[in-house]
């Protein structure tokens, strides 16, 4: 084992350079007025927190949470039965279904967003085929459908992995003891899949909440989510703020990272072996 440790050095170096150092820089920028572009002063300050008093920021936070919660709920309602069904399929057919779920994920995310965008135009290929017009660009419905399409597999996989490993003799035992199907589900199956539910919820909600290309394209730029504000702080406002918008962007990013870490802690509490994290 000790000899093998050597081979982890490249990975550790990678983590240090591309995760640890950037995070430190992010923290340094978020809590200071140090301008990355015009280095002059360095003072620890809370001034970047002022962004959270802007009404457009609170709107963006509410929208990000709102849309991602709705997305997650829909993914759960669709995903749970699918995962349950998959878990109970015979080995061979299950593989085909899993492949059908995984293969689309290999297509570039941007391409899939552009595809949704095409389908949601008033006169799309969908209109040619069905005669119906899905005029959903620029609407919350369009964004939610796009997000569900994008992140549904992230709900299904963790649920599938707990349901597949579940000990079905317990289900049989419950039935033997006279529990109704509904009772079996709510008292046995559901509690045992809780770890997968927590992972699924977080793994769907986090990317949905932080997406920024999707609202810009499918939302026609009418809807600003947290991701769009971070993008603007890092890309569009740099000159005008003398580089300080980057500090504000770092702070918002840091808050999102904090949220992710907390979420991760919650997952590991429900799922001690980390088996649902794919």
């Amino acid at each position, binding site marked *: 084992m000790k000899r093998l440790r050597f081979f982890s050095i490249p990975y550790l170096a990678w983590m240090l350079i591309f995760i640890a150092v950037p995070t430190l820089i992010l923290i340094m920028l978020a809590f200071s007025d140090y301008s990355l572009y015009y280095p002059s002063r360095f003072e620890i300050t809370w001034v970047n927190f002022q962004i959270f008093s802007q009404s*457009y920021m609170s709107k963006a936070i509410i929208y990000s949470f709102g849309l991602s919660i709705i997305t997650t709920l829909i993914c759960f309602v669709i995903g749970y039965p699918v995962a349950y069904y998959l878990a109970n399929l015979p080995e061979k057919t299950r593989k085909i279904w899993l492949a059908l779920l995984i293969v689309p994920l290999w297509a570039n995310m941007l391409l899939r967003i552009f595809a949704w965008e095409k389908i949601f135009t008033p006169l799309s290929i969908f209109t040619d085929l069905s005669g119906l017009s899905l005029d959903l*660009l620029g609407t919350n419905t369009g964004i939610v459908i796009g997000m569900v399409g994008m992140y549904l597999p992230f709900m299904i996989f963790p649920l599938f992995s707990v349901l597949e490993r579940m000990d079905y003799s317990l289900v049989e035992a419950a039935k033997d003891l006279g529990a109704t199907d509904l009772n079996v589900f709510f008292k046995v199956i559901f509690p045992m899949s809780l770890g997968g539910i927590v992972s699924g919820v977080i793994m769907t909600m986090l990317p949905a909440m932080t997406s920024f290309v999707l609202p*810009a394209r499918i939302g*026609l*730029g*009418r809807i600003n989510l947290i991701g769009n504000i971070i993008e603007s702080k890092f890309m569009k406002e*740099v*000159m*005008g703020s003398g580089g300080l918008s980057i500090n504000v962007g770092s702070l918002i990013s840091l808050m999102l990272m904090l949220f992710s870490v907390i979420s991760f802690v919650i997952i590991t509490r429900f799922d001690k072996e980390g088996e649902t994290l794919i």
Partner: protein
Amino acid sequence: MKKALVLLLSLAFVLTLTACSYKDKLYVLNWGDYMDESLIKQFEKEYRIDVKYKPVGSNEDMASLLIAQNAVYDLIFPSDYMIDKFIQDEMIQPIDFSLLTHFEALEVNPTLASLYADSGFSDYVVPYAWGTIGIMYRTDKVGLQDFVESEGWAALFESGSTYRAGMYDSSRDAVAAALLYLGYSVNSEDGDELEQAESALRDANFHAWGEDNLKGRILANTLDLALVYSGDYFSEYYAAIEDERAINFGFYVPESTNVWMDAIVIPNIAQNINSAHLFIDFFLREEVALQNYEWIGYAPPYITIYDQIYDQILSDFGGLASTFDPYPQGSLREMYVYGSNERATELAHILARVKPNQ
């Protein structure tokens, strides 16, 4: 295995040979698709200078690369307001016009020259292309063309639920359009006027916010009209001709609008200043300039070239020629200046606040 290795090595050798054929280098930062690259090859051959050409997507990207100072750039092609900012921050240096043998003969359009002279650009820039912002619209929507031509900027802001209007998702352009609609200067610093612009942008309740994808949305029938750069319209026009598609869109430039100009400037961090001037002068040669402007399709700022390109466009494309002149007689034109950092930040906040989020 050995054969493959030899092959690979010789290939690498040939590649290094062609890549470093000339000792002198010139680092150019330009927009994508904004220069006929066969002319760059010609320049390389003639002057034995290796041109490293890097395309960027926005003025802000250009600025970031300059500020970061981790590479040499000898020539850049920023637009009006960014030129202003670079001059303010002392990031670019005056052009040595005595080294540009063809500049005088080409004759910069005097109205354009006086516009940028007002902003104090004259010593720093060699104009490269110019145009306007205006309204692109679908010609197959009943009544839309009349509406746009009679209402001008108001068409964009008061189309209500009749037409779906799109706005540029860039704080400077969106606020400028609102200021033009209200009859103020695009460079207004007046708090009250900016506040009015903000409510105009909010009340307009645009159907879409985009950048150069707005033109595509008009073609896809997601939008009926939108604020676009004249360049957006021209490129869409040429593309339609090339694909032999029917032209079902038009472009209207209201009487008073903003003029944009991209110019060649030399940053302070440039190291090959002599080659930079040679490069500029090469692109000012009449035959080179003609070929280049024909290729990029935007209005040349030089009278001699402009007239020839205009005649060509008139004979090739007819209708396009009517909007090709960025500054027709009797119209009102302004050019962006950077203003202050405070104004730039305020514009960004206005843009964030007017998004409906609904």
